[in-house]
């Protein structure tokens, strides 16, 4: 294959991947954030403690996460048809991608929100704040750097899943790599696809890390300083002391 032949294929595939991953990320965040927060709130000692609700939500998340994506896609076909009116194409792939990513992101949200210092929750309660205030003013803003990292991880995972979306004719970079690169021995095209995926994933990871870090740096910690930062802060001081001596 020559470049003029490959170029339209690749640009269409890149666009398809971004389209699918973009929409399913938005849906995963919108669905996974409240689900993850609920998993924390309903847990023992949580503000909305409910053993039954916690068990039910936890089980749903576990079952959804334990299902291989390709199976999930097939299992959800009925639902996909009901939502989008079709089971083929990009829109049809977004449904299982989003549904697969919601519990994935929810677990990451759960971990991030659990890290928030309980003392802050107590402080807001002591001011007369209700549960919604606690979620809005404490849990989400304080966990934000971790939440951004979680979203980045989710996007990267979704790009991986989207390779399988080719099985429902949704296109995308992974689909090109399999159909042309693997099945038609277009090795060159396959490597280009892989390279594009690597660049896209690196960019996303870089952007996510940068956003999380800049938020973290702005706020820092009100609690004890983490060890790594302590070491960094001490080094120049120690060097200065050495010079002075």
């Amino acid at each position, binding site marked *: 294959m020559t470049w003029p032949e490959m170029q339209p294929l690749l640009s269409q595939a890149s666009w398809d991947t971004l389209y699918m991953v973009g929409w399913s990320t938005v849906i995963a965040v919108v669905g996974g954030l409240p689900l993850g927060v609920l998993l924390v709130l309903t847990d023992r000692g949580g*503000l*909305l*403690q409910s053993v039954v609700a916690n068990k039910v939500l936890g089980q749903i998340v576990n079952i959804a996460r334990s299902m291989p994506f390709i199976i999930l896609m097939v299992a959800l076909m009925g639902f996909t048809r009901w939502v989008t009116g079709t089971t083929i194409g990009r829109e049809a792939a977004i449904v299982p991608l989003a549904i697969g990513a919601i519990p994935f992101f929810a677990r990451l949200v759960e971990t991030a929100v659990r890290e928030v*210092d309980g*003392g*802050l929750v*107590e*402080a*807001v*309660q*002591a*001011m*007369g*704040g*209700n*549960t919604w*205030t606690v979620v809005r*003013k*404490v849990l989400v*803003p*304080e966990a*934000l750097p971790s939440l951004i990292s979680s979203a980045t991880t989710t996007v990267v995972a979704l790009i991986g899943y989207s390779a399988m979306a080719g099985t429902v004719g949704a296109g995308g970079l992974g689909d090109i790599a399999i159909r042309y690169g693997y099945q038609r021995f277009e090795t060159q095209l396959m490597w280009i696809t892989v390279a594009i995926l690597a660049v896209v994933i690196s960019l996303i990871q870089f952007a996510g890390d940068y956003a999380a870090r800049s*938020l973290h740096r*702005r*706020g*820092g*910690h*009100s*609690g004890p300083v983490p060890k790594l930062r302590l070491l960094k802060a001490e080094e120049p001081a120690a060097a200065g002391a050495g010079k002075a001596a």
Partner: protein
Amino acid sequence: MITTSGLTKVYRSRGREVTALDGVDLHVREGEVYGVIGRSGAGKSSLIRCVNLLERPTSGTVTVAGQELTALAGRGPRAGKELRQARSRIGMVFQHFNLLSTRTVQDNVELPLEILGLSGKERSRKALGLLDLVGLADKAKAYPAQLSGGQKQRVGIARALAGDPKVLLSDEATSALDPETTRSILQLLRDLNRQLGLTVLLITHEMDVVKSICDSAALMERGRIVESGTVSELLATPGSELAAALFPLSGAAAGDDRTVVDVTFHGDAATQPVISQLSRTYNIDISILGAAMDTVGGKQVGRMRIELPGRYEENVVPVGFLREQGLQIDVVGRAAEEPALVKDGAK
């Protein structure tokens, strides 16, 4: 201002029961600084959390500013609207400050005002006023991570005052601070108590905190209040553990040939030269084994441990002389024989 009666808190986990509070009756008068002191695990934290119902007591009642908080039921562990309104009028300061790291100092102080539903302009006017009051007007735009411990606690205090509370609860507010910063924070609390007529209930494990700012104090042990009263009342109580802890004295107890006596001075008696009078009047040699003098709640108070030669029976008259001078006398070594009586007296 704050009254608890029969306050009991039992924690149940995995079939085990731990009684953190065991029938606590506490009475904090309006405008005073009241210190609850005790070792860790004595139930102090549970007590202060029960006052604004962050912990729901198992039984008993809590009344703050004439409002019975325990009657403002919330469904289950959640607080109802009335209880949340009542809480917004009770300030609380924490050991680890509990400031939101993603908000600036000013935004942290504005948080309770956001909950109260004030407009942006009012919030910022009030927050800046409070920061000025605690001496941090120049740090409004800083983040908590950029502040020292003492500054963080000042922000915590400003935040606690945002709802114009009549009552301030302080949960080990100075325990994470160094001695000098502790003093400045205590001074601030004292000033606020005087300027705003704020009633302060504080819990601490540091005797110095009680000594430097408390009008009244209570000693907690195993979920119970063992002793309580104004600091001068406590000092006047024979065998008071709090008084002894506030003014620790060392020295051996009485032996066969000597009598050791603890003398507590307060009020006018503190200015009288009683020891030299005693020595001259009865022509006896007095050794001073230990002494501590301090100002508590603006009054000169002190304790002294002295040794008189001869057994107690031979010293009845000199000890009687000291009692006549209006001094509090505890004969060391003999008091231990009647501990039950002493405890009753302390209550």
